[in-house]
């Protein structure tokens, strides 16, 4: 499904701020994989997601998604097949537009549809049905501007928008980190349900160690722009948070250091 082959990225090359963010990283994902990613500050977790999404072009290496080489495709072209959520719940939606207008925009990712077509009754019924799945009562507020929603509601809406047209790949960058615990649980539960229902391939960066082991089917640990640990199957099932910390120490020779890391729930 996703084939990342020895990609590298250096920011601000040749200056005092030179930062090697990814160094020869390779990663292969099968269709339907749900992979969690953990790592210390500056390990390159977000950079990896940005590279796959096309926020910048990589300096070396290639990225193939669903058999198509997207290494040099611009971000807006890649987003046809890639859905994305950020930590900041405000980043995924347009605040002054209504819920249904936001959904209509997300719906643009489906290849069909003429740019001059307007929201139809059928579209509205479809949006309503999908909003009802969130269980937040948003289906009755479709005409309200998104700016009136809470962070959790906005993130749930963004999740719905990112998966309205099922993406080949879903990228989640600590998408529950800025929410209050109840909203975070709700959004994570929705994520798991939507990903499972749609058999969506998913990469999720998290700062929650136990979440990294319990959510999804595979866990990657990153350090210094590379992958230091790749866990799946029975080995992952038997792993505890303490084991994970020890593995990190063995792999990199230092403690896992992340100012937001949660060691338990």
């Amino acid at each position, binding site marked *: 499904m996703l084939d990342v082959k020895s990609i590298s990225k250096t920011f601000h090359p040749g200056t005092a701020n030179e930062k090697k963010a990814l160094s020869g990283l390779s990663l292969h994902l099968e269709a339907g994989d749900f992979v969690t990613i953990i790592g210390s500050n500056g390990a390159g977790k977000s950079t990896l997601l940005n590279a796959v999404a096309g926020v910048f072009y990589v300096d070396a290496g290639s990225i193939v998604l669903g058999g198509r080489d997207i290494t040099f495709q611009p*971000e*807006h072209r890649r*987003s046809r097949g890639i859905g994305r959520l950020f930590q900041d719940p405000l*980043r*995924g939606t*347009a605040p002054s537009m209504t819920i249904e207008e936001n959904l*209509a925009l*997300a719906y*643009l990712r489906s290849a069909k549809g003429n*740019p001059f077509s307007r929201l139809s009754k059928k579209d509205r019924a479809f949006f309503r049905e999908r909003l009802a799945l969130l269980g937040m009562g948003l289906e009755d507020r479709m005409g309200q501007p998104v700016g009136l929603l809470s962070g959790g509601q906005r993130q749930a809406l963004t999740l719905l928008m990112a998966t309205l047209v099922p993406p080949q790949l879903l990228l989640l960058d600590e998408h529950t980190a800025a929410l209050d615990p109840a909203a975070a649980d709700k959004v994570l539960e929705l994520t798991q349900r939507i990903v499972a229902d749609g058999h969506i391939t998913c990469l999720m960066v998290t700062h929650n160690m136990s979440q990294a082991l319990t959510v999804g089917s595979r866990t990657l640990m990153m350090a210094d722009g590379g992958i230091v640990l790749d866990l799946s199957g029975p080995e992952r099932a038997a792993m505890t948070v303490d084991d994970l910390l020890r593995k990190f120490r063995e792999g990199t020779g230092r403690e896992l250091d992340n100012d937001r890391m949660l060691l338990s729930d």
Partner: protein
Amino acid sequence: MLLITQTALELGFLYALVAMALFLSYRILDIADLTTDGCFVLGAAVSVTLAGAGYPILAIPAAMGAGACAGFVTAFLQTRLGVPSILAGIVTNTGLYTVNLMAMGWRSNASLLRVDTIFTLLRDTGVGGGYSDLLLAAVVTLAAGGLLVLFLGTRLGLSIRATGDNRDMVRASSVNPTFTVTVGLCISNALTALAGAMVGQYQKTVDINSGTGIVVIGLACLIIGETVLGRRTVVKGVVAAVLGSILYRFLYAVVFYTKVVPVDCLKLLTAAIVGLAIAAPSIRRWAAFQKRKLAAGRKGGT
């Protein structure tokens, strides 16, 4: 008195197209588009020249096309070549000065004498009687406003609206913001040129400097309208542009006839109104902060 009212309404409707264009560029796309001044004259110059050559109706779409080209240049400069958006407008505006002279046959003004304009054509049919000019101005402006509202409800229109709101999200919905900015600026400048084209034929004259300050006057109209109506929806924004423009022209007429302030001061007054209106949130914040500081000082008992 009736004549004054009628003229104010006519000019109000005609200049409302500029306020509508600014609603699209400034409010929706969040771009201060300084192409507006030159683009207004461009529309008027193309319109007057073509009307003078005997094509008053063709002159209108031709002027809009010219305006869209000017918008495209501004958009190209800021989206592809990395020119800051305000500077992009100024660069285009400066270039347009020469283009406008060229469009007027290398003269600094042009007039229409004894030739048909769209206004005389309608008057000759007898439709609207003594109000035919007003009728034409109102129909053109309301039609443009209606089309703009309809367009902003389409998928392309929605992605243009989202561009000013959240560019990341536009990219995430597989639309290139470069494209939406370009389309938006082409449309807004076509509207500005339409205003110039209508005003040019209405006044039967165009001067190379007739666009000076149009962008600020257009913003003033928009702000006046929004103060009356509030600004939430697209429909309200477009209606605010029309209403504000009419109110502004009434204000202008009052000043012109009562001379409470000299008419020559009106541009300064308009600029001050616009400056203050846009600064209002900062002034409110500053006032609130001073109040808090004052209150805190008292409590400290110094």
